């Protein structure tokens, strides 16, 4: 994603026109609203919100047992509300403003409570309100992704506490490091739409949550099959559609890069869905619906950081690699290690996110059909920078998430009691049932 308001190219026609009228050019040079860009970004913002509610919510809802279907829908919906407010009150300011002496690490409090954001404020060629809201939808979906790791056993109150602290102490700083001019941006790491900020970040927090909360009662001896794969497929399909807003929207403009981002997103996802389907067909003898839907999500994740730089054939390679690694992580490694990442947030978002982030450095090169590396960068040096950005996110996100979870466990407890877990969170925590039939 481009930094807000920095370095946006003026459309050449407009620039040419302005050069003919020097006085006007002086007056207008600062920033000009482009209605095409604005129209696309308002649409993209809606698409990204659509990814969380109802896309991700339904994807997860179908995967849990019927007694917990409302609990995950509720968690995603509540996070949508909560994160929107956090982002508006202080998240956006700390993430997206210049932090002065501390800019390597965090932004400033200059835009606390969205101070200074008016109908006339611009961010590049779009209204700042649109840029801020677009980013708000990213701040909504990232915590919601983590829900899958602790599904069916976390206290709702503990979830609210954890997510509020996590967005503040993990998501916002890492956003600033990568997109706000912080140290990862300074290294020259490529993360177009959120491989590190969103997916690796959510993935490692999810892994920590699965480890700190422990397994669901009965896992893995008791059967816990998804209760409604139809919902899951609908959710995965909505994610796929919404992801065009996520990736192509991250250009913050309606231009050629946005168009290519859409193309590579489609190709990587198509490849990954089929890869998972064939992998399962070969391993188990039958292709499964859950498999092809999961593969699609792995492909969407893997192409996310590369969507502004990879070419179409690079996207196919990234989608393939993302699905293969996520398949192994979710179906083999998780079972071998015995942790209960219930809906495979680490296995899909973490692992495919890492694969995508690393390969972004490879397929950005012009010789492999990409948009080209920055001056002085080689594939080797770019991959090294990508690697550092991955490790930085994993280490910081992992440690802080772990500490937050332990603290909350100590103070109010993370898990529901055994009786509530057996009864199901829908009745135990919400006094409601998903199905009255």
């Amino acid at each position, binding site marked *: 994603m481009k930094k807000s308001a920095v370095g946006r190219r003026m459309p050449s026609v407009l620039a040419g026109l302005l050069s003919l009228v020097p006085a006007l050019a002086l007056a207008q040079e600062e920033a000009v609203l482009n209605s095409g860009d604005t129209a696309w970004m308002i649409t993209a913002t809606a698409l990204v919100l659509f990814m969380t509610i109802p896309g991700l919510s339904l994807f997860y809802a179908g995967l849990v047992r019927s007694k917990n279907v409302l609990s995950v829908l509720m968690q995603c919906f509540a996070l949508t509300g909560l994160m929107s407010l956090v982002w508006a009150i202080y998240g956006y300011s700390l993430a997206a403003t210049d932090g002065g002496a501390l800019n390597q690490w965090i932004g400033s409090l200059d835009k606390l409570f969205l101070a200074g954001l008016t109908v006339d404020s611009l961010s590049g060629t779009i209204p700042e309100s649109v840029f801020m809201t677009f980013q708000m939808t990213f701040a909504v979906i990232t915590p919601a992704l983590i829900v899958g790791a602790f599904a069916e056993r976390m206290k709702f109150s503990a979830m609210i506490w954890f997510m509020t602290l996590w967005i503040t102490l993990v998501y916002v700083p890492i956003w600033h490091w990568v997109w706000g001019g912080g140290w990862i941006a300074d290294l020259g790491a490529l993360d177009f739409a959120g491989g590190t900020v969103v997916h690796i970040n959510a993935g490692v927090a999810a892994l920590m949550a699965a480890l700190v909360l422990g397994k669901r009662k009965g896992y893995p001896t008791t059967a816990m*099959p998804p209760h409604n794969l139809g919902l899951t497929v609908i959710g995965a399909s909505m994610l796929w559609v919404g992801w065009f807003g996520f990736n192509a929207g991250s250009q913050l403009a309606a231009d050629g890069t946005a168009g290519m981002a859409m193309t590579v997103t489609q190709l990587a996802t198509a490849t990954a869905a089929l890869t998972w389907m064939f992998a399962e067909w070969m391993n*188990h003898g039958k292709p*499964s619906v859950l498999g092809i839907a*999961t593969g699609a999500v792995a492909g969407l994740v893997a192409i996310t950081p590369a969507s502004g730089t990879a070419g179409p054939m690079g996207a196919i390679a990234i989608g393939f690699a993302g699905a293969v690694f996520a398949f192994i992580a979710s179906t*083999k490694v998780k*079972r071998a290690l015995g942790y209960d990442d219930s809906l495979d947030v680490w296995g899909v978002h973490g692992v495919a996110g890492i694969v995508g982030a690393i390969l972004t450095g490879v397929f950005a090169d012009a010789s492999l059909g990409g948009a080209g590396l920055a001056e002085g960068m080689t594939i080797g040096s770019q991959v090294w920078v990508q690697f550092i950005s991955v490790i930085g996110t994993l280490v910081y996100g992992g440690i802080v998430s772990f500490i937050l979870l332990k603290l909350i466990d100590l103070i109010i407890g993370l898990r529901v009691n055994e009786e509530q877990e057996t009864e199901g969170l829908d009745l135990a925590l919400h006094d409601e049932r998903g199905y009255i039939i």
Partner: protein
Amino acid sequence: MKLVAAIIKPFKLDDVREALGDIGVSGITVIEVKGFGRQKGHTELYRGAEYVVDFLPKIKIEIAVDDDMVDKVIEAISGAARTGKIGDGKIFVFGLDQVIRIRTGETGPDAL
């Protein structure tokens, strides 16, 4: 009088109902059931997690008939429900002490 109970594959119900109709059976009771026999269950796989499902869905039908009809009923059910593959089901025959038609109060073979 006898009560014939048969466990069959669900997709064979229509064929069995037709075969029974052809030989003049005037009523059957159908129950959806689950169970296992030599066919055992099946396995389901979700992202590498394999679950063994022990009980398979089957259909149980019950027919009350007079003694002279029993062989014909068994023949009709076996003929219609057979696929030759494991899991085709079983037929059980019980003695039936009494039958009463609730509407008229008729009893015995008259009530069948």
